[in-house]
């Protein structure tokens, strides 16, 4: 028993590549090197900018929901870069491996599709949508913060802890080869003896605990911290989707936590949950995983629906068509999502009537989703359209998502599903749902709320180039997979025997490169915008003639969001204020504001959790135990701390707010049609008909 558990020299990726040189190993070592250099580069950059103190006090220890939201999104962008490169690598391998083994070893290829899926779901999609909700929702309901700021930061850092484990697997040892769903018995100790599955277990466990806590936080915030007059039916639709998502997070993460715990007990302590023999039953795992997995799909998609609702109404200059039907549809989808999980394993062997029941339930979800699509279309009809990047992404979503929805209805039929189960048709379908239905929504959200967070717009030209590349890339990469899937091509294949598929594979490869180009141009857009931030500045804080409360405060908003908590009388609260000519008028009185103090406890908990997961993965028991005790020790010590907030005096609030109002009143009013030009001052023309 060594001090480092089962971790040895030859587990380090660089040593491994040195010992058995091959293209596959060289790529793995290159990825490990990129992770190390990336971390070092970030550290050097922060040092060069002299920003360690700002980073520590302003960000890493901050409990401000806006900072936490931005950090979530940064995490998502880092992780999407890795997972998208992995996707490109897989497509290149596949196109090169027709009647040929290609250049990636089977083990390496299997790790790639596992990390790609795990990262995209747990460390790209989840942090992205959590970040957007974190940033936007409290502002939209007129709250100063989330209900539990400390727990909010703990959720973030637990997720980061999981992401650290994912990155560590690039350097130490290797990752699971069992796919993102990690079905046993393949992932059990007898078939996957290495550390890969353990990395998966602990990374996913940290992320899922973080999501449960986030769900509680979002739900309680929406229930308890709405501004006076902000009834549930006065809330912007994005907040409704956030509420639905939080409910799903609260109730759907538990089955995943149980499933990963059971898999861990099987692997570490020889329990017999999913083994072959001794009464083990892997079907229980499939059932548990999708009890979580299906609501998870709606966790991913609903926030994007919320974003699209905001985009269509804002950039059409019209109130949302069918608000109540959209709310009802959102809530129906949330509840129905708990009734369809079996459609992920129609072929497991249960009776036909069970398949039929779940197939029908699945098709039912198409109804509320269809309602939404019509509502969005009708919102745009006869609107005063401003073709911003956000609206372009949203429009592409509308068309593309319907295609994905239709293939979903096809798959919901158990008879058809038997034919295309585990084929590329399925892969095409869920990418067709998640790329437009999640990623485009989150990118649109960044386009819309970036000016709120940083005070300047994003460059429209690069935004459009990016939208074009994402769109073209998506169609080129995934439409061929529908065809191949119908032709019998299975998913997760490293190489192919049938030369007829080569043209499709080539198209998919080019599509994958275009998607990578989409990400690159998106990052380019950030860079160009930062460089041109003077020309893009929107100091007024309302660049899009916004309809909801967040546009009525400064950009970036003060730590306390609103100098005076707004009184709300209707939907589209800020539009109403503007129409009444009451925007930017000074309040009569100010009050002291109590805000939480920064603390390093959440960061410590996240890092200790990562250490605990690393210790468990490598059987370094002392590390795991110490880290575990450290986590709970930190929680207990924190409970003995009583001075956890500080007061911002009313005079200080008044000074800041009055100065801002003074500045805004001096700005020229921007007509809607000039919203995408440098003339946009961030103060929208007032008094237009709503």
């Amino acid at each position, binding site marked *: 028993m060594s001090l480092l558990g089962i971790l040895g020299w030859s587990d380090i990726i660089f040593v491994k590549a040195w010992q058995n040189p091959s293209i596959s190993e060289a790529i793995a070592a290159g990825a490990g090197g990129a992770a190390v250099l990336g971390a070092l580069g970030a550290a050097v950059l922060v040092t060069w900018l002299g920003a360690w103190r700002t980073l520590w006090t302003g960000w890493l220890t901050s409990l401000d929901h806006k900072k936490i939201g931005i950090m979530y999104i940064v995490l998502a962008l880092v992780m999407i870069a890795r997972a998208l490169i992995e996707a490109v690598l897989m497509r290149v391998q596949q196109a090169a491996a027709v009647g040929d083994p290609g250049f990636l070893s089977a083990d390496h290829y299997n790790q790639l599709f596992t990390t790609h899926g795990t990262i995209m779901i747990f460390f790209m999609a989840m942090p992205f949508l959590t970040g957007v909700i974190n940033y936007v929702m409290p502002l939209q309901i007129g709250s100063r913060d989330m209900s539990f700021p400390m727990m909010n930061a703990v959720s973030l850092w637990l997720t980061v802890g999981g992401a650290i484990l994912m990155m560590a697997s690039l350097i130490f040892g290797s990752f699971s080869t069992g796919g993102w769903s990690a079905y046993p018995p393949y992932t059990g100790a007898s078939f996957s003896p290495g550390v890969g599955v353990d990395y998966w277990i602990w990374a996913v466990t940290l992320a899922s605990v973080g999501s449960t806590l986030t769900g509680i936080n979002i739900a309680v915030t929406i*229930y308890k911290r709405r501004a006076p007059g902000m009834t549930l039916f006065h809330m912007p639709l994005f907040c409704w989707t956030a509420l639905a998502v939080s*409910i799903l997070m609260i*109730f759907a993460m538990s*089955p995943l936590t149980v499933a990963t715990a059971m898999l861990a007990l099987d692997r570490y302590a020889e329990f017999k949950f999913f083994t072959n023999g001794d009464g083990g*039953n892997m*079907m*229980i795992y499939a*059932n*548990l995983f999708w*009890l979580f997995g299906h609501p998870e799909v709606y966790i991913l998609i609903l926030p994007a629906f919320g974003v699209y609702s905001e985009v269509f109404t804002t950039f059409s200059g019209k109130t949302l068509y069918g608000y109540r039907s959209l709310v009802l549809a959102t809530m129906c989808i949330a*509840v129905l999502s*708990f*009734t369809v*999980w*079996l459609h992920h394993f129609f072929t*497991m*062997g*249960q*009776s036909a009537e*069970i398949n039929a029941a779940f197939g029908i339930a699945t098709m039912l979800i198409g109804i509320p989703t269809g309602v939404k699509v019509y509502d969005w279309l009708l919102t745009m009809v006869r609107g005063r359209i401003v073709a911003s990047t956000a609206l372009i992404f949203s429009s592409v979503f509308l068309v593309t998502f319907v295609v994905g929805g239709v293939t979903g209805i096809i798959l919901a039929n158990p008879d058809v599903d038997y034919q295309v189960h585990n084929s590329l048709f399925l892969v095409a379908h869920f990418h067709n749902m998640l790329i437009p239905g999640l990623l485009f929504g989150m990118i649109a959200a960044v386009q819309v709320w970036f000016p709120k967070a940083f005070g300047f717009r994003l460059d429209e030209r690069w935004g459009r180039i990016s939208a074009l590349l994402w769109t073209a890339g998506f169609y080129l990469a995934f439409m061929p997979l529908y065809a191949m899937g119908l032709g019998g091509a299975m998913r997760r294949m490293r190489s192919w025997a049938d030369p007829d598929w080569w043209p499709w594979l080539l198209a998919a490869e080019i599509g994958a490169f275009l998607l990578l180009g989409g990400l690159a141009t998106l990052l380019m857009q950030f860079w160009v915008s930062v460089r041109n931030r003077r020309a893009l500045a929107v100091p007024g804080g309302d660049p899009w003639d916004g309809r909801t409360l967040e546009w009525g405060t400064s950009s970036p908003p003060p730590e306390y969001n609103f100098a005076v908590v707004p009184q709300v009388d209707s939907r589209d609260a800020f539009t109403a204020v503007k129409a009444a000519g009451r925007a930017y008028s000074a309040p009569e009185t100010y009050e002291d504001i109590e805000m939480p103090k920064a603390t390093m406890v959440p960061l410590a908990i996240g890092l200790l959790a990562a250490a605990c997961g690393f210790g468990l993965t490598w059987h370094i028991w002392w590390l795991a135990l110490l880290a575990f005790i450290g986590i709970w020790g930190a929680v207990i010590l924190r409970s003995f701390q009583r001075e956890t907030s500080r007061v911002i005096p009313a005079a200080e609030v008044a000074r800041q707010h009055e100065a801002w109002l003074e500045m805004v009143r001096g700005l020229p009013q921007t007509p809607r049609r000039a919203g995408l030009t440098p003339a946009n001052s961030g103060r929208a023309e007032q008094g237009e008909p709503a």
Partner: protein
Amino acid sequence: MTGPRNEEEHEELRRERRALTIGAVQALILTCAAFAIPATGLLTGLAALAGIALLGVLQIAVHFRWFLHLDLRRSHRHDLQLVLFTVLIVTLMVGGSIWILFDLHDRMM
């Protein structure tokens, strides 16, 4: 150091003490009854299982009512929404899982 401050509060305290006692006594009776079924063999087979299940559900209701003070008429609306929604989700998850897994088991035999 400060007990009830007025007659109204005296009444409230009495009510709360009584609730605790009622809960404890009912829970005790139901527990004993449930354990009595296998101990005495009074009921057998399906009837015994149904009896045990019924007593279990009753006792859970008793705990919710008297220890957790959940009251369908008097509780906070949010609490009720939350608990009832949880009951719905738990029913869907447990009921669905048992339906699926028992069926799979039958077909494997």
